[in-house]
Every structure is written in structure tokens, then in C-alpha cells.
């Protein structure tokens, strides 16, 4: 298993060779038709979400559906924030995500450097273990890990979610290691002749030359942590500590229980609030996302 250099999905677009791939079978018109149909399937739920969150009960219960709510019913959002402290939830998610990103990037860079450059007895075995943990299903460690945090009295704190990130994530370490190996050895050898130690070499040569991979690791940590549901669900059950996802799921159970206040429109408003930070970050950093994701295309 080896990893390629950054492969961008966009890089070769300017080359014009019209008839390749599916284009060998289908005309451009048919292709566009398929693309647009798919676009509707993937995009329509977002439109449904936005309009649904702006409807009152009568508008919601219409058939055929109301496509543009009039009047716009903003109250669903104020109801949402009255029912539960969603502002606090988002702040909690942001705090946890911030520290997990810092912890993952820092530890993965350090460990990635060790595996990419430093020779030591036992390194091969450790690297094998590292690869093994990438595909290790997490349920096997959940129960004892929970017991550790319960004994430490860390339930209902952010620590069970943040602290493990500082011990490195196997997949991120692997990505960093592959990237570091592509940095020419002459650079560290020259620095070593100048008397630089391993940490100086790591800090002055590897880190500054590796921002694409470090950004990739950061983006993955961000996506995974913001979306994570299982871990915060078992560690955070106090209303003031919940993350956006846990708070929304909590409200959803109320909704399912038939609460008259928690309408489906309020739930849709909550759904939009929880996903919005991810979508905004994606739109702003779109190029880096595509780069980051395609970078993991292993061969």
C-alpha cells in the first residue's frame, strides 16, 4: 500500500479531450441530463430542509407541498433556541473540535516524522501495529475506555473527547509519514551537517514544507469531530455540555415522543443549524477539501 502525491481532482480539467469515460457511450446532452438529475437528487434535500424550517404547521401540512413558504415563519428558529441552549451546544462543539484538531495535527506530525525518518530497532513492528489500528473497529475498546474515564470522574467534561487526540490518530500519522518520505533526504542531511538536532530538522524543515498534508489532517479531524455522535453521546449527558449533534438527537427523541412544541419544522431548523458550520467551512475551503480527500486515494 503506498500513497500518491497530492492528486487534485481539478488539475487536469483544462485539457480538452471530449470523448472519454462515459463520453464514449453517451452524447454531452445525455450526460448533462444525468448530471442534472443526480444534482437534483443530491441537492433537493437541502432545499427541502430550508423551506421546511421556515413553514408553520398549516404550510407544512399542505399537499402538494408549499415550495416557497409565504409568509416566512422564522419562529421555528426562536423556538429552537428557547427549547434548548443551541448556542451553547455549538460553542461546545467548537471548543472540542478546536482542541482535537490541534492535538491530532501536532501528535501526528511528530509521530509521522519518527516513522518517516528515524531508524530504530522495533520500528517495523510498531509500523505494522500502526497500520493494524487503522482498520481496528472502535467498539472493541469502547467499554474499557469508558470505564477509565468514569473512574477518572471525567464524565460530563470535554476531556474524554479531547485528550485521546493528543496521542495521535493512526490514519493521520500514516498520511503524514507518507508525505514526509517524499521530502528529499539531502535537506535533513545538510541541516545535520550544520549541527541541527532532530527536533530542529523536524521543526524547520519538515513542518514548513508540509502544510498541505497538515491541512489535510486538520480538515479530517474537523469533519470527524464536528460530525461525531457516538462519543459525545456516551460522555456528555448534561445539557450545558452537549454538542450540537447530541443536542439535536436529544430534541429529536422528544419530537418522536410526540412533544407538541418540538415540531418537525423546529427539528429541521435545528438540523440546518448543526450542519451550517460544516457547509460554510466547505464553501470557503472547497479547494483544500477536494485536495485533502483525494489525497487519501490509496493505490
Amino acid at each position, binding site marked *: 500500500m503506498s500513497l500518491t502525491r497530492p492528486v487534485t*481532482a*481539478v*488539475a487536469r*480539467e483544462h485539457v480538452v*479531450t471530449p470523448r472519454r*469515460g*462515459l463520453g*464514449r457511450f453517451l452524447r454531452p446532452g445525455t450526460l448533462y441530463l444525468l*448530471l442534472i438529475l443526480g*444534482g437534483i437528487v*443530491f441537492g433537493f434535500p437541502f432545499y*427541502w430542509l430550508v423551506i*421546511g424550517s421556515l413553514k408553520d404547521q398549516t404550510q*407544512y*401540512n*399542505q*399537499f402538494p*407541498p408549499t415550495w416557497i413558504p409565504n409568509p416566512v415563519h422564522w419562529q421555528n428558529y426562536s423556538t429552537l433556541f428557547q427549547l434548548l441552549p443551541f448556542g451553547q451546544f455549538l460553542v461546545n462543539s467548537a471548543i472540542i473540535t478546536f482542541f482535537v484538531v490541534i492535538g491530532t495535527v501536532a*501528535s501526528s506530525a*511528530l*509521530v509521522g516524522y*519518527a516513522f518517516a525518518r*528515524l*531508524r*530504530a530497532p522495533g520500528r517495523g513492528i510498531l509500523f505494522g*501495529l500502526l497500520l493494524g489500528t487503522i482498520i481496528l*473497529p472502535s*467498539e*472493541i*475498546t*469502547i*467499554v474499557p*475506555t*469508558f*470505564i*477509565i474515564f*468514569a473512574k477518572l470522574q471525567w464524565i460530563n467534561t470535554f476531556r474524554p473527547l479531547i485528550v*485521546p487526540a493528543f*496521542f*495521535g490518530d493512526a490514519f493521520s*500519522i500514516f498520511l503524514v509519514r507518507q508525505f514526509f518520505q517524499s521530502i528529499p533526504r539531502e535537506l535533513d542531511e545538510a541541516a545535520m551537517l550544520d549541527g541541527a538536532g*532532530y527536533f530542529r530538522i523536524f521543526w524547520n524543515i519538515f513542518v514548513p514544507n508540509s502544510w498541505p498534508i497538515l491541512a489535510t489532517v486538520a480538515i479530517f479531524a474537523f469533519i470527524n469531530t*464536528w*460530525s461525531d*455522535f*457516538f462519543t459525545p453521546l*456516551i460522555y456528555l449527558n448534561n445539557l450545558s455540555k452537549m454538542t450540537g*449533534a447530541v443536542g439535536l*438527537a436529544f430534541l*429529536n*427523541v422528544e419530537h418522536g415522543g410526540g412533544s407538541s412544541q418540538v415540531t418537525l419544522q423546529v*427539528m429541521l431548523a*435545528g438540523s440546518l443549524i448543526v*450542519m451550517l458550520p*460544516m457547509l460554510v467551512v*466547505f464553501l470557503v475551503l472547497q479547494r483544500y477539501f477536494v485536495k485533502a*480527500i*483525494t489525497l*487519501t486515494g490509496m*493505490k
Partner: protein
Amino acid sequence: MTRLERREAIAFYLFASPWILGFLIWTLGPMLASLYLSFTNYDLFTPPQWVGLQNYTGLLTSDGEFRSAMFNTFYFVIIGLPVNLVLALATALLLNERLRGITFFRGLYYVPTLVPAVASGVLWISLFDPQYGVLDAILRVFHLPSIDWLADPNWIKPAIIITLLWGVGGGMIIYLAGLQNIPEQLYESAKIDGAGAWSRFFHVTLPLLTPTILFEVIIGLIGFFQIFDQIYVLTYNHPGEESITFMYYLFQTAFGSETNQMGYASAQAWIFFVIVMAATFLVFKTSARWVFYEGARQ
């Protein structure tokens, strides 16, 4: 070992120490602990009581809920995963075209994967609504009977697979990267040799894509074996025997009920671990026969 070599080895262990410690604290230690706990009864408060194989025999012979969880989980892996893989490849082939505006479509197809599972679950509850949902509106247009997707035991699993397919863009973008790594010359020479479009797809594209397919199968296996979020949200934390999954049952056993049955949950985890590892091993083992490595090397 020379002085320099020793210095380098010490540096290695210092730099790698976060992960080595993490491996011992968060992986190896807990794995051994859960193996031990799986032979005990443990509720977090009173010391664990050794019960031998009782947890395992109970799970495998007389626990109907565990059997349902197993069945449903295998349903998702056996039906959901292949559908997901094929659809991901199909969309990747479509989005690999060099057409005007293709970047926009790539973004659009990819965005749903970024929606947190809980948020997407809530959205799909609304789309699946048997009275006012969109799917129902479509059925009505074709004069088909409406389906209560989430309450009907026959439809809940397909419904969950549909919500997962909305996020097919995650797999798609990796296929896309794989497709873009296939050298154009191979198509040219195949063409010169008289290969038709189908023949080029089956003899150039597909073989060169097999390493990517293997990667996606492995990642997909683990993901589909661990389905949890969608179950929790779409059943309002009350899955029935037709929707409970392995991960949900473990969650309920260890953390969900009033008593934390840590021993019983650990036995579940180990049974499942063995199954997932066996499936992964099987895929790797057969991959020698269907994964084409030669041409993928650049």
C-alpha cells in the same frame, strides 16, 4: 550499535512516544481489559464477577435481540455496501467527464457527505414522512400506495440505506481520484489495438481501479458493520427488532439501560470484532486474485 545510531533510536522513541503511549492506553490495554471483562459480570460499581463463558453462550444461544442485531447488521453490509460501492463508482464515472461546470456538480454531489449524521437523519425523517414527505408526493404522482418508511418493519432498513446513499459522495471522490490517475496513453493504445468502448472499460478502467475498489471495500466494511447514528435518530432511540444493529445493541447494553452491563457488552464487542476481522481478512485474502497492482504503480 554506534553512538549515533543509539541517538537516532532514542529520538525515534521520543518522537513516536505519543502514539506508542496512546496505543498502550487506548488500544492494547482496553482490548485486553474488554477480553477479561467479557468473562465477567460487571456493572461499574461492584467488582467484576467471573462467570466463565456464560456471556458468550447466552449471546449465541438465547438472546433474540442479539440475533436481530446480527441479522440487521449483516443486511446492511450485504445489501447496503455493494449498492453504495456501485453507485459511488457510477457517479464517479459521470463526474470524471470534462464538461463545462463539472466542478460545480462535483461539489454538489459531495456536499451531503459533510452533513453530520444526526442532522441528515432529521432531514430524512421529514423526507420520509408518510403524509407530507417528498417521497410520498412522488408516490402519489404515480398513484402508488404511500409507504410509512420508518414505521413499517419491511421498509425501515431500505430507508436507512437510502439515507446512507445520500452520502455516496465520500466514496465517489476517492474513485474520482483513482480514475484521474489512469494514464490517458493506455486508452489511446487500447484504441489503436481496436478495443471498443466496453472493452476499454473492462480491460483498462476497471482493472486499474481495483486497488481503489479494495480500499473502499475495506473502509466500507468497517463503516457498514458499525451503523449506529442513523438507527438512533430514525427510530427516535427506540429501534425495534427490525432495525436494531449490533452497535446500537452494544450501546444499549453498556450505556443505555439503567444497569451498565459492561461484561455482557464486552462479550458482544469481541464476537463482533472476530466477525469484522474475519470479513476484512477474507477480502484481503481474495484480493490477490482480483486486485491488479502492476499497472497502478507509476
